[in-house]
């Protein structure tokens, strides 16, 4: 019954046991939850895009670590946690792009306002006013 050449067992009972013994990837649910929360916090006013950005970055970092673990030893972890991880990664990337876009728009706005104010400020004839 057992195939000794490849070192893998062909016995279905033992294979089922092996599948049942698989553990969840660490942080898979955390990646999913953080990735989904990153979008909700990303679009709202003022400071919140930074919250979305940080959540997205944390989620991506955790997911890359877990992905490395899975690549090293794919038989050890369950398939559902891998699916969770992938979904969380997609969500985190979308949230990251969205909040990055909003932050970039904010920075461009600040630059335009700053340039305008600077032009106005430097075009005021200060010497005529004070002398």
């Amino acid at each position, binding site marked *: 019954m057992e195939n000794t050449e490849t070192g893998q067992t062909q016995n279905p009972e033992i294979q089922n046991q092996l599948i049942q013994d698989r553990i969840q990837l660490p942080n898979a*649910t955390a990646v*999913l*939850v953080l*990735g*989904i929360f990153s*979008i*909700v916090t990303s*679009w*709202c*006013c*003022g*400071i*919140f895009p930074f919250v979305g950005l940080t959540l997205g970055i944390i989620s991506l970092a955790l997911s890359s670590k877990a992905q490395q673990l899975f690549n090293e030893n794919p038989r050890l972890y369950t398939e*559902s946690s891998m*699916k*969770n991880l*992938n*979904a969380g990664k*997609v*969500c985190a990337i*979308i949230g990251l792009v*969205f909040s990055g876009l*909003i932050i970039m728009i*904010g920075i461009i*706005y600040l630059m335009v306002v700053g340039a305008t104010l600077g032009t106005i400020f430097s075009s005021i004839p200060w010497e005529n006013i004070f002398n």
Partner: protein
Amino acid sequence: MLEHLTDWLESHMRTCTIREHTGIYCAGCGLQRSVIALLKGHIMESLILYPALIPILLMFTFLFFHLVFRFRSGASILKYMFIGNVSIVFMHYIYILFFQQIN
């Protein structure tokens, strides 16, 4: 109890920072009013003010149940719900920027 909550929320509404400083709507404008309308039970009004609120709440309930019960294809459903929500928010944002002014 719920009436007290909605009254309190209505008296403590906060103006969006972006709206206050630039006069342009942000992608989250309308969310507070939408939540209050939903708490009062006006589902249609809430959908008009912020169409993505109810799908987002659905997504979070689904996330909770998925984490508890571990559905077989829950992760991919969540992914597509997420993409749908993002596109709803984006389209609504473009719509209120160009075609409509809510006060």
